[in-house]
């Protein structure tokens, strides 16, 4: 469970910054396309988003794994859950990273 606790506590801090970025100006204005792209073009914010993506994906899918292994315990089930969870984790990280990279390279206006 150590990985679960470490990712959970780390995610708490980075997600707090992510939410604060939506509140430093009126909420609706902060969601305008130009504003969001400018966020993504800031390398530090892009790295923050990437860290949120990785931390939450590990924390979330490991949590799901724990729940599924609590419900049933057989060798096949355990192996299948582990493999599926790792595939889903890699898939969501890859998909989110693609968005961050493409949005980071966007030109505004």
């Amino acid at each position, binding site marked *: *469970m150590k990985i679960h606790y470490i990712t959970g506590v780390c995610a708490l801090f980075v997600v707090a910054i992510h939410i604060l970025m939506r509140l430093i100006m009126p*909420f609706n204005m902060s969601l305008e396309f130009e504003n969001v792209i400018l966020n993504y073009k800031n390398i530090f914010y892009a790295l923050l988003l990437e860290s949120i993506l990785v931390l939450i994906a590990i924390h*979330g899918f490991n949590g799901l794994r724990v*729940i599924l292994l609590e*419900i049933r315990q057989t060798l096949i089930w355990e192996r299948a859950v582990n493999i599926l969870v790792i595939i889903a984790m890699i898939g969501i990280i890859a998909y989110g990273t693609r968005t961050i990279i493409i949005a980071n390279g966007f030109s505004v206006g």
Partner: protein
Amino acid sequence: MTSTTSAKRIDENNKNDRTNRAGIKGWLNPIIYGWERVSYWFQRLTGIFLLVYFIGHVYETSSLVSGPDAWAAMLEMTQTVGGHLFLILVIGASTFHTINGIRLIFTQSGQGLGKPGRPDYPYDPTSVNNKQRSGLWIAFILAAVAMLYGANVLFSGE
């Protein structure tokens, strides 16, 4: 009875003795177990809900790469009363999951469990004490406060 037959029988009994045989019904049963069980499955249900939201959020933000029109169309879907109510639920779930999660980290490291005592009638475990329960109530209260704040921001747009 030979020792081999006896060993086989013990092995068979062990196989049948599945401590989780209530399965998902036992997992969801909030009755007789008290607030600790409510905390147990609220932590799991909010976790699953937040994982679903996280996947949806990653998909939702990917519309950015298709340009301003796709982004505006996606935002239009979420900037509704239903969308706001859903986000308020996300705020409540994430606050509860965080505060209760911190309580569980402390609990697992042995903090706030009290000293072990002699098992006297009515056999209340010392670990299920007021410190633990107040942690749970703080999680519920802060979740409600965060939801109110979120509702104010979302519905006023500020």
